[in-house]
């Protein structure tokens, strides 16, 4: 039996990691819910945002948390441009085509980063990087605690935005009924691009919260993209609450898998869940789409 003295800290640790997974997945689920796009480039764009936070810190000495004012808006612009310029024009009626285009984007982004930034793994040192908070017997790095609450606050803000603002309502209208939305005068292309931009901006937030306790290299996105898919699929494609809960579950599963099966098999549980859900609840995952 595993001692609760080890179990509880690793549970809490899993929850804090899970909140970040949830944050990455929020953008993915928003993009899926509105545009029905499975964005394969999600991980690569997260990596780009992480490099953004890193270089702002290295060159201008900007603290990762202050980068929240710069990186998410920049990511929004990138997302808006990608949707308007490339992704929106690529479907030819098949959803695999969009998947291929986002795959192409991720290959380009990852390999150009490899070319420009080399494959070195880099971290940002902040005065608070090694501070610890004690909670229920677990010693948690302060940045992870901040990231946990940051993720919850971001999810709350996103929810408020979707339910309280005109644009949020337009996005939800489009997600529900494309033709009807067009009929009542919603500028579909603009709202699609806004949704994609907001989804990518979430990655900017995730990057700022992640950087003080994590690292960046050109390959870092790949692991995240699979976890983000799993999170979104687990929570139900297009559902915000689902993404939050899914993220927390994945974080805990990973921590528990690591604890019981060892580190190298820790992620095994994630993919097992992913496969089982894809196989046995595919209709549930598609949400309102038959």
């Amino acid at each position, binding site marked *: 039996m595993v001692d609760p003295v080890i179990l509880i800290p690793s549970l809490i640790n899993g929850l804090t990691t899970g909140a970040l997974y949830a944050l990455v997945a929020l953008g993915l689920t928003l993009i899926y819910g509105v545009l029905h796009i*499975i964005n394969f480039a999600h991980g690569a764009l997260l990596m780009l945002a992480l490099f953004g936070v890193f270089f702002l810190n290295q060159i201008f000495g900007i603290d990762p948390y202050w980068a929240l004012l710069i990186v998410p808006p920049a990511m929004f612009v990138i997302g808006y441009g990608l949707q308007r310029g*490339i992704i929106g*024009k*690529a479907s*030819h*009626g*098949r*959803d*695999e*085509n969009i*998947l*291929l*285009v986002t*795959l*192409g*984007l*991720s*290959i*380009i982004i*990852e*390999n*150009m*980063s*490899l*070319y420009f930034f080399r*494959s070195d793994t880099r971290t940002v040192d902040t005065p608070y990087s090694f501070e610890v908070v004690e909670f229920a017997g677990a010693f948690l790095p302060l940045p992870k605690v901040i990231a946990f609450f940051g993720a919850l606050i971001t999810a709350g803000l996103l929810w408020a935005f979707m339910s309280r603002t005109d644009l949020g309502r337009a996005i939800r209208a489009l997600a529900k009924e494309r033709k009807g939305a067009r009929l009542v005068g919603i500028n579909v292309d603009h709202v699609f691009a806004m949704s994609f931009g907001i989804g990518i901006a979430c990655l900017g937030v995730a990057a700022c919260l992640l950087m003080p306790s994590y690292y960046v290299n*050109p390959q870092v996105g*790949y692991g995240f993209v*699979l976890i983000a*898919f*799993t999170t979104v*699929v687990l929570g139900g494609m297009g559902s915000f609450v689902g993404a939050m809960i899914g993220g927390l579950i994945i974080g805990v599963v990973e921590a528990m898998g690591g604890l019981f099966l*060892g580190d*190298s*098999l820790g*992620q*095994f549980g994630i*993919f*097992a869940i*992913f*496969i089982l859900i*894809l*196989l*046995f609840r*595919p209709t549930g*995952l598609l949400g309102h789409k038959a």
Partner: protein
Amino acid sequence: MINRNQLLTLLIVFAIIGTAPFWIARESTLNTVILILYVALLGQAWNILGGYGGQFSFGHAAFFGTGAYSVAVLQLQYGINPWIGLFIGGLLAMGVALFIGFASFRYGLRGSYFALVTLAFAEVLRILSNSVSFTGGGVGILIPLSRDPANMQFANNVGYFWLIWALCLACFLTVWWLGRSRFGAWLQAVRDNEDAARALGVDVFATKMKAAALSGFFSGLAGVFYAQFYLYLDPAIAYGSAVSIESLLVPIIGGMGTLFGPLIGAAVTHLLAETTRHFVGDVPGIALAIYGLLLILVVMFLPRGLISIFGRIGGLFGSRRAADA
């Protein structure tokens, strides 16, 4: 008629490629030809399921890696000759393909969901091969050097050339047969409209399973070739995403669901990579970034792949209507 011309074209193309060892003196140039054939085999294997069947796998590494690990483990641990390992590897890869196919097609998984589940299966195999001992774990497997054709190892790369040439030809002939057989017609009917095909009496599930089996078998052979050519394997090489991505890039860029698409895709991507290397130097990432760009451009502007540029010649090459283009 077109089919007979196609077979003739196929045989002529392979005959011409077969002259390569006689006039290519430089080892590195012949290596390029070998790699193009190897990637064409990988791409053609994907093309059976993805191009002709419309089932976009993002996890062909699952089959490739199984073939590669089979031949390596069988000769290292059980002393089984690689020539026998070649077939066992192919069959085991076929078994993996049937398992994944059964799990996915049984529940009618389609489109992007099939892509994601295949990707996840390949990841599971990667994690497992990293953790169990008989694959050598993360350290990998080094196949001992014994340059003897009886061990499927050759003194120079001419031997490897003939091996991959023969494997590739076998795969291309199979796909040629696919283009003219009733089974191939069913497969394309399933791709173009699954529900209509079912209504006309096609056993959709069985058709997809057979395509998965063939596709897995040839991917496994590509894996065996890789293992014998490089004599080294680890989980990231065998089950990593790079193989999965390469095997779908090549037929999509060349032309999905066509006999010659994978060969054109393999030649173009590799020659482009070589040219880039010539101008930029051996810089990591650049060649792959170009693959990505090519993929986007093809999907956006040439949904039938580069083969469609050939226009009228395309008819001779058997360019087929891509699903929705």
